[in-house]
């Protein structure tokens, strides 16, 4: 039984009992979800209210659900990791108690811990992440939607390690599950995210034809499903490709569409969007604009606990400043300090060293 079957049963019973407060518990998620891209803080607030109500009604499963949804909102929509670890550990401890045996969220709750480490400092926590993934696979029967989630974690880790072939294999495996899958497993949702990874992998390998293919299909799917952020990302990749092919008019049109789509959203835009936008400006020789991209990107996540990403953005800033001939001591110091907060700073510091030596010449 997945969580939605469980909720539907609960809802029927509450309706039959005329229990309006318990019925309200079942109404909060559907009311909150539409706010995910445009007002995620409101979604969080609604889940907090749900948690409070569940506590008043002495409904431990619902308390756990709302804890889990709060973690998800903070990680995936608000992208603010400061309080995530407390909440995720608390949810995991609850989920492991006897009262929650058979809880349909068990895999997802354990997986949130993996995701926390992946987002905060994937290289530093590589061993921990691998242990967690292996543990989840050993401990639970991985079926339904959980198959996508586990493959997604493996794919993300491989991307962070820059193991592109491995990452691609995981992504393609995930896509192979989508066709004909039960809609209750959210195959479309997962496919859209897989296309974003395939675009990123293709960009890193500079496989422009593949990037074009995945960006187009991703745009189509995300548009139909109403995933604004991902649609903007796919459009931004296409804008970059058009500019590379010297189709300036098409490039500008695609970029306008991407900007228009993403500017409606009130969440910290995805790293891939910033990379695509920065690359777009670099290809057009607009280094000042590229620099502004990284300044904005930095502003969007600063202080949100994303240590590795902050470091990446600092390095990108340094990279552009070096090209502009304006890389100053303060910028280098900020990047070094950012790297020093990571568990394994040597990799980032190595990249910084190469930037300082002028060895880097990507794009």
């Amino acid at each position, binding site marked *: 039984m997945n969580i939605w079957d469980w909720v539907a049963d609960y809802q029927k019973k509450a309706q039959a009992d005329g229990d309006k*407060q318990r019925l*309200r518990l079942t109404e909060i998620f559907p*009311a909150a979800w539409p706010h995910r891209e445009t*007002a995620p*803080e*409101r979604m*969080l*607030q*609604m889940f*907090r*209210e749900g*948690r*409070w*109500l569940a506590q*008043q009604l002495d409904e431990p499963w619902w308390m756990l659900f709302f804890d889990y949804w709060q973690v998800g909102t903070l990680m995936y929509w608000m992208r603010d990791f400061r309080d995530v*670890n*407390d909440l995720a*550990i*608390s949810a*995991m*401890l609850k989920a*492991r108690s006897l009262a929650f045996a058979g809880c349909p969220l068990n895999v997802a709750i*354990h997986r949130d*811990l993996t995701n926390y480490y992946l987002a905060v400092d994937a290289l530093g926590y590589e061993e*921990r992440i691998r*242990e*967690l993934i*292996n*543990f989840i696979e050993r*401990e639970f029967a991985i079926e339904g939607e959980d198959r996508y989630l586990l493959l997604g974690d493996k794919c993300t880790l491989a991307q962070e390690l820059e193991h592109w072939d491995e990452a691609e294999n995981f992504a393609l495996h995930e896509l192979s599950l989508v066709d004909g899958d039960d809609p209750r497993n959210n195959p479309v949702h997962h496919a859209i995210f897989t296309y974003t990874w395939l675009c990123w992998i293709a960009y890193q390998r500079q496989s422009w034809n593949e990037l074009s293919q995945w960006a187009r299909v991703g745009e189509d799917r995300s548009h139909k499903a109403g995933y604004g952020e991902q649609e903007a990302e796919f459009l931004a990749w296409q804008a970059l490709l058009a500019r590379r092919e010297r189709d300036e008019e098409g490039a500008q049109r695609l970029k306008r569409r991407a900007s228009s789509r993403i500017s409606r959203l009130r969440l910290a835009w995805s790293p891939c969007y910033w990379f695509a936008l920065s690359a777009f400006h670099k290809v057009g020789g607009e280094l000042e604009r590229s620099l502004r991209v990284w300044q904005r990107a930095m502003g969007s996540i600063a202080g949100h606990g994303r240590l590795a990403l902050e470091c990446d953005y600092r390095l990108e800033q340094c990279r552009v400043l070096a090209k502009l001939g304006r890389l100053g001591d303060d910028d280098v110091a900020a990047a070094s300090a950012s790297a020093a907060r990571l568990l394994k700073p040597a990799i980032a510091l190595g990249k910084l060293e190469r930037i300082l030596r002028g060895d880097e010449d990507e794009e």
Partner: protein
Amino acid sequence: LLEETPPLSAKHKFDLHLPGLLKVLAEHLYSSKKVGIRELIQNAHDSCVRRRIEANEPHYRPRIDLSVDPARRTLTIRDNGNGLTEEEIQTYLATIGRGYTRELREKLSLYSPEEAGELIGQFGLGFLSAFLIASEVTLTTRSVSGSGALRWHSAGDEHYDLSPTEHAAIGTTVELRVKPAASFILKENALAGTVRTYADFLPTPIYVQEDEHPINLMTPPWEEDDPLQAARDYVARAFHNTEPLAVFPLSDWKVDIGHDHVTVPLKGFLFVPPGSVASVREFGDMTVFIRRMFICERERDLLPPWARFVRGVIECPVLQPTASREGIHQDENYESVRQALEEQLGQALRELARDEPATWKKIVRGHSDVIVGWAVSDNEFFERVEDIVTFRTSRGPLSLGEYLKLTNGTLYYVTRELGSLQEQVLAEGRDVPAIDASWFAVTPFLQKYALRHPDVDLVQLDGEAEQLLRPIMEEPFAALLKHYREQGVRARVAAFKPADVPAVVLYPQGAELAQEASASAEAGDLPGPLAGLVHEYIDQKFGGGEELKGTLYLNASCPLVRRLAERPPNEATRAVVLTLLHQVARLFAGRMLSAADAVAAFRETTQSLEALLQP
């Protein structure tokens, strides 16, 4: 025989199984049997409107009469509308899905849209709903066109009888033989309540049990001379004597739909009830009328989610009812209406806050839980309420403005309902009240407030209560601290009020979670990688976990503690007293104690007292 069988490609006609259809209507289309009354009243009203439109009778006075006869188990609905001819009965009454009124409205809409708007019928299903409450229906009618009177009778099966009859007056009388399951309608009060619910705003007067006054208002509040007063009166009539704090009339509203603007026709009003209780008694619902006929109440999606302190009554012709007319289709029009309501409410609240601050204050205070919850996620709304909304504090409800005057710019709050007594006592010792932040939205509200006002400090007492203590030189108390430290107790000395409290034990924020995690790991409940993760979490956050044991703060302001330091008794007595102080402080903290810990603390207390009593 083969020749008589129609070829497979021939056109066939649907057959209708009326009893089956009635069962579908009764069990699946309509959720309430009362809808049958609504449909019959509406038919009667439409009949009156048609007579006014189609027959040129300047002195015509439409009316509808309802009466029940419990002894005969009958309900009668009589109108003096235009009646039906035999052809109309055959074409419309007996043809399911074909509505005379709808066809007339479509014709009229071209050249007389106002008159078209007065007609309500739509789906041609309404008359069938009589069988929701009746086992038999008898209709007697005489048409205004001059044909003879007719009697139509059906027992809800495939057949009906139609015959000439004597019926002097023009109009239609429908007599229902009420089913046992619908007996409630034979009570006069229930009938009157049903008529008021569904037909209060119908312009045709409706009389129940031959009362000399019509039971329905006929004119909706927004069409009265004094719409605001009429709206207040209507709220008292329809919403259980609620005296609203404010009423906002609605009007047509232009909304931006992206590529264009459309004007949404709106009538009605919004109002703010005196108070709400979050998640338990919230509002944010609308009662919806279409063409003056009640469609539904408690419609929750028309108002924005933050407006759970508002209710309303709306009449809007662009909303599309469902086939049962007990709900509304959530189509593009619905979205435009929702947008129009949100914008109009936002503007009305802004104007109220500006022009009637006292009323605005009453609203914010009466609905503080709901408003606090909303304001956290909306900056503009937050600005409007931040200094008005009140919070529960250890000195009763206070606004943040009032509170901050008492504390010189610091917000002290406790997030737990239970076990916060120690923190409240410490706060009161410093002569500052503690804000009760156990309601989920209060902490984020206070955090947002502090963020917007950099001069305001924020102290979570359950976790940061050290800030209420004044650091002090340890040296005069060194012997006491040494005693504790030798026993593995983290101990410090500080000065705090009330001076009657000799010691407290304080724990860091998140201590409960860390303790739970640590206990699970130590009990072997967590498999390898999870145990490692938990240990790492505790190490990073609580410096190896020592802090989790709590810190005992001796109160240098307490005469007893000072005496123990300055004029210590013999070593044995001092040890006993210090043990007592520690155990009392642990129990007073009310946190981080398992049942076994509490029993152990009591045991040590008892043993210490016994030691003192030794000769």
